[in-house]
C-alpha cells in the first residue's frame, strides 16, 4: 500500500488548536503565579519546557507506524498498571495523597498516563467485540475489567477525581463502541445505585468536599473557601474582565491552586465573559475535531480510540470548568493545556498524537486522498 506520506495525512488543525490553548495557558501561568508585582517567570519557563516536550511527544506518537499502537495497547496498559502499583508503594505524598513519582527534578503522575492506556486497551477490546446491533453484556463485562483495575489503584491513592475520569471514559467509549442500549441502561441504573455505597467508602475530606459543594456557605473559611473564592474570581471578571495581570483573586492568593486546577478562575477574572467564551470555543472545537475523527475514521479501533480520547478531553474540560464555576465538587482535575503541570501536558499532547496517528487511516481506503466526509457521512 502506498498512500500519501504520513506528513501529508497529518491533522494540523488538531495540533494548532491545542497550541492555541497552550499559548493561553502560558500567559495565564505567568499571571497566576505572580505574587503582587513579582512575576512567576520560573514556572513559565518550566511550562514552556513541558509544552515543547509535549509537542515532541505528539510527533513521536504521530510517527509510530500504522497498527503499532493497537498492537502494543495491552502491553502499554500493563506497564502503566505496574507504575500505579509503584506509586502506591513508593510514591511521593503530597497533600494527603500518594500521586507522584519523582523523576529527577520533575514529578509526574502515572494516573494521567493511565487514562490514555485505559482508552487504548479498551478501544482495542471493544472494537474487537464489535457486533452490528450492539455489544451484549457478556462481551462488555471483560471490558469493565480494563477500567476497574486502574480505577481502584487510583482511588486508593486516594485521587477520587482522576478515578472518576476512568468511569466517564468507560461510559463514553461504551457508547461509541456500540454497546447495546439495554446494557448501557443497566449500568447507568447500577451507577446511580452505587452512589450511597461510594459515600460509605469515601474519606472524610472527600465527603466534606461534596457537602460543601452542596452548600459552600456551610464553612466559608474552611472547606467551602475554594468554591467561594473561585466563584468570586470568575464572577468579578464581568463581561470584559479586569484586564491581563489586573486580577486580584489570584495574585493576592485568595484562589487556591491558582495556576493548576483553578487556572480558569484566574483567566476568566482577567478576561471576563468574552475570554471565557473564546476558551470555551477552543475547547469545543478540539472536542468536535476528535469526535469528527472518531466518526470519520475507516478503522474501527481508530474510531473507538478517538472517541475515547474525545471523551477524555471532554471530561477533563467539563469537570474542571464546572468545578471552577461551582457546579461540581472540588476535585484535582486539571484543565488540559491551560493548567500548569507536566504530566497533564504530556498526556494531553500524546493523546492528541494518538488521535492524529490513528486518523491517518482515514485516507487509507479513500485512494483519492479526499478529506474525511464529516460526521454525517
Amino acid at each position: 500500500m502506498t498512500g500519501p506520506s504520513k506528513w501529508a495525512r497529518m491533522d494540523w488543525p488538531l495540533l494548532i488548536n491545542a497550541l492555541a490553548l497552550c499559548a493561553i495557558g502560558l500567559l495565564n501561568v505567568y499571571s497566576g503565579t505572580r505574587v503582587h508585582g513579582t512575576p512567576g517567570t520560573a514556572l513559565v519557563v518550566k511550562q514552556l519546557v513541558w509544552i515543547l516536550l509535549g509537542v515532541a511527544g505528539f510527533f513521536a506518537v504521530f510517527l509510530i507506524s500504522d497498527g503499532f499502537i493497537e498492537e502494543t495497547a495491552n502491553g502499554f496498559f500493563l506497564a502503566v498498571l505496574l507504575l500505579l502499583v509503584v506509586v502506591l508503594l513508593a510514591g511521593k505524598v503530597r497533600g494527603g495523597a500518594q500521586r507522584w513519582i519523582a523523576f529527577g527534578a520533575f514529578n509526574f503522575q502515572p494516573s494521567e498516563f493511565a487514562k490514555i492506556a485505559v482508552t487504548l486497551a479498551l478501544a482495542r477490546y471493544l472494537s474487537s467485540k464489535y457486533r452490528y446491533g450492539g455489544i451484549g453484556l457478556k462481551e462488555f463485562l471483560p471490558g469493565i475489567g480494563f477500567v476497574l483495575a486502574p480505577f481502584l489503584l487510583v482511588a486508593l491513592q486516594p485521587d477520587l477525581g482522576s478515578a472518576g475520569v476512568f468511569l466517564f471514559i468507560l461510559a463514553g467509549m461504551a457508547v461509541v463502541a456500540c454497546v447495546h442500549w439495554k446494557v448501557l441502561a443497566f449500568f447507568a441504573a447500577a451507577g446511580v445505585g452505587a452512589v450511597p455505597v461510594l459515600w460509605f467508602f469515601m474519606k472524610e475530606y472527600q465527603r466534606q468536599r461534596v457537602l460543601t459543594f452542596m452548600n459552600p456557605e456551610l464553612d466559608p473559611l474552611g472547606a467551602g473557601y475554594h468554591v467561594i473564592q473561585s466563584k468570586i474570581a470568575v464572577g468579578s471578571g464581568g463581561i470584559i474582565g479586569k484586564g491581563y495581570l489586573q486580577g486580584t483573586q489570584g495574585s493576592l492568593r485568595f484562589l487556591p491552586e491558582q495556576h493548576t486546577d483553578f487556572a480558569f478562575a484566574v483567566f476568566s477574572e482577567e478576561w471576563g465573559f468574552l475570554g471565557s467564551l473564546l476558551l470555551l470555543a477552543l475547547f469545543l472545537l478540539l472536542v468536535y475535531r476528535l469526535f469528527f475523527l472518531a466518526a470519520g475514521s475507516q478503522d474501527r479501533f481508530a474510531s473507538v480510540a478517538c472517541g475515547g480520547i474525545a471523551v477524555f478531553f471532554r471530561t477533563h474540560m467539563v469537570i474542571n470548568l464546572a468545578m471552577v464555576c461551582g457546579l461540581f465538587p472540588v476535585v484535582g482535575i486539571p484543565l488540559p493545556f491551560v493548567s500548569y503541570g507536566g504530566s497533564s501536558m504530556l498526556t494531553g499532547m500524546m493523546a492528541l498524537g494518538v488521535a492524529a496517528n490513528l486518523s491517518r487511516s482515514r485516507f487509507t481506503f479513500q485512494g483519492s486522498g479526499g478529506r474525511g466526509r464529516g460526521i454525517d457521512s
Partner: protein
Amino acid sequence: MKSRIRKREQDPDITRRSRLLLYVAFGAFALLLGRLYWLQVVESERYRNLAENNRLRLRTVRAPRGLILDRKGRAIAETQGSFDLVCSPVDVMDLEAEIGLLAEIVEFDVDNNEVLDKIRTAKRTNPFSGITVARDLRFEQVSVIEFNRENLPGFSVLVAAKRSYPYGTAFAHVLGYVGEASPQELDQSKDDSLAMGDLVGKYGLERLMDDDLRGVNGGRKVEVDAAGRDQRLVEEVPSRSGGAVHTSLDADLQVTAQDALGNRAGAVIALAPRTGEVLAFFSGPAFDPNVFARGIRKAEWQALNTDPRKPMQNKGLQGTYAPGSTIKPFLAMAALEEKMQEREKLVFCPGSYRLGNRVFRCWREKGHGAVDMYRAIVQSCDVYFYTLGLKLGPDRVAKLEKDAGLGTITGIDLPGERKGLVPDAEWKRTVSKERWYDYESVLLGIGQGAVHLTPLEVSVGYAALATGGEVMGPRVVSKVIAKDGKVRVHAPKMLRKLPWTPENVEFIRKALAGVVNDYGTGGAAKLPGIVVGGKTGTAQVASVKGKMIKSEDLPYEIRDHAWFVAFAPVDDPQIVVAAMVEHGGHGGSAAAPIVKAVMQEFFRTRPVGPPRKEGA
C-alpha cells in the same frame, strides 16, 4: 498490515454514536456557558463587590488626641506612640489556638476570655474592624510576635497613639482618664465620628473637653492578600489631631500640693482670687490615669473602688465636710454687715458656754477670758462665736455664706461637682418639719451641726473675702485651640459682686493675718516676707463625751477633719489655698503646713512688690 484494517463503512452506528456523544458535549458546554453568563454577566456586580471586599480593607487612622497644658505651656496630658496588638477578626484562622499562643508568648495582661468574646462578637458583626487586644507592648513582646507571625494570621502589631500623663497621679482627678468608647458611646456619637476602639474621655477634663480633645480620624484603604497582610496603599485620608486645652493649672504647684498632702486623704485647692483661675487642685489618695490609658485590669479597678479612702472620688468638689472654725470669718462678716455686733464688743470666755441645760465647750479648756472680735478670730474662740451664732440666727448667716459661694454649685469646669449645705430655718422646716432650735444657732457659730461644705466652696468663699466681695466662678480651662485652629478664650466669670463695706473687709483680712502672724492658731503657715492671712478649722466628726481627748489619740475614722484656708499677700491677695485633711486632726498642725508649702512654691517664682494700700 492491510488485514488489520477493518473497513467500517458498514458500521453507521459508530458514526451515529459518536455524533450522540458530540451532542452530549455540546449540551455540557452549553450548560457551562449558561453558568458563566450567570456568574460573569448577571451576577457580576455582586461578585465584583465580594472581590473588592476580599482585597480592600479600610483601616482607621486614629487621630492623635489633643494636648492638655498647664499655665506655663507644659503638657500634663499628651499622646505618645505605643506598640499595640491589633486583631482583624476576618483574617483570623483559628481564634482559640492563636489566642493561646499569644497568651503564651506575650504573657497577656488582658483577661483571655474577654478578648475571645470581643473578637468573636466582632467576627459576626464587624469582621473588617480592628480590635486592640493589648496596648503598649514591650520591645521583646513585639519581636516575639513578629517572629511568630506565620502562626498568627489576623493579628498584627501596629504603632498606635497612647494617652500619657507625665505627672502621674498628681493631676488624676482634674484630668480624669480615657478609655475605649463603650457601645453606648458609639451609638450616641453624633455624625458617627467615633470609631470602634477610639479613646474617649471618661472622667475629669478628658471627659468634659472630649469634643475638643478628640481629633478627626483618617482612613487608609489598603490592599491585602489572603493572609490579611497589607500589600499596597490604595487611598489615604489623613487624620486631624485634636485641639489643645490650655489650663490655668500650675504643674509645680500641683506637685507641691500632692507632696504636701502626702499619703493622707484630703484635698488641696489653690485659686487666683481675682480671676477664679484654679492654680492647683489635688485630691488624695489619687489614681494613676496612665493605668487607665493602657487598659485597667479588673483587679486594679476593684481595688480602686473598694478602697475605703475612695481614690476615685474628687474630694475637692465631691466630698462635703463640716467646715469647723473656717466658717468663723463669715459669721464675723455677717455681724459687721448686719451691724449686729461691734468689733470692739468684748465677750467673756470661761472655757464653755451654757444654753439652757446644755454646755458647749470652747476648744481652750481654761477659756480665753474677755475677747473682742479680732482676738476671737485670731484665737478661734468658740464661746465668742457661740454667742454670735445665737445672736445672728440661721437666716442672716446663711444669706451671707450663700452669697459668698458656700453651699452652692460654683460652676467649676470639672465634672461631678456636688453642693454642700448651709442650713437655715426654712431648710429645717422642709427637711425635718421642725422649727429651728437655738442650740443649732450656737453650733452654727463654729461650723458644726448640719452645715457641710466642699473644699472648693470654702476656697471660693475665702477668695471672696480676699477680694472684698468679688465672687469669681472657679475655672480650670483658660483657652482652647480647637481642631480647626480657632482659639476660644475662657474669660474670668464673676458670679456676684457683694456690696461689702471696705472697712469690714479690711478688718476681716487683718484678723486673718493675725491668725497666722499674731500668735494665732495658724502660725504654722507663716511665710517670711509675705503676710499670709488664713483660718484654721478642726471639724468634729464625732462628739466625744467627758474629758477633752487629743484628736491624735482617737481612732482614725472618728478623728477630726483638719482645715486651713488662707490667702496672701493679705493686702493684695494673689492666691487662695485651701487644705482639708480627712481625719487629719488639728487644722493648725495638720493643714496649715500644706498651705504654707503651696504658697512658698507659688511665691518662689513671683516676687511680691511693696504692699499696695487698699482703696488708695
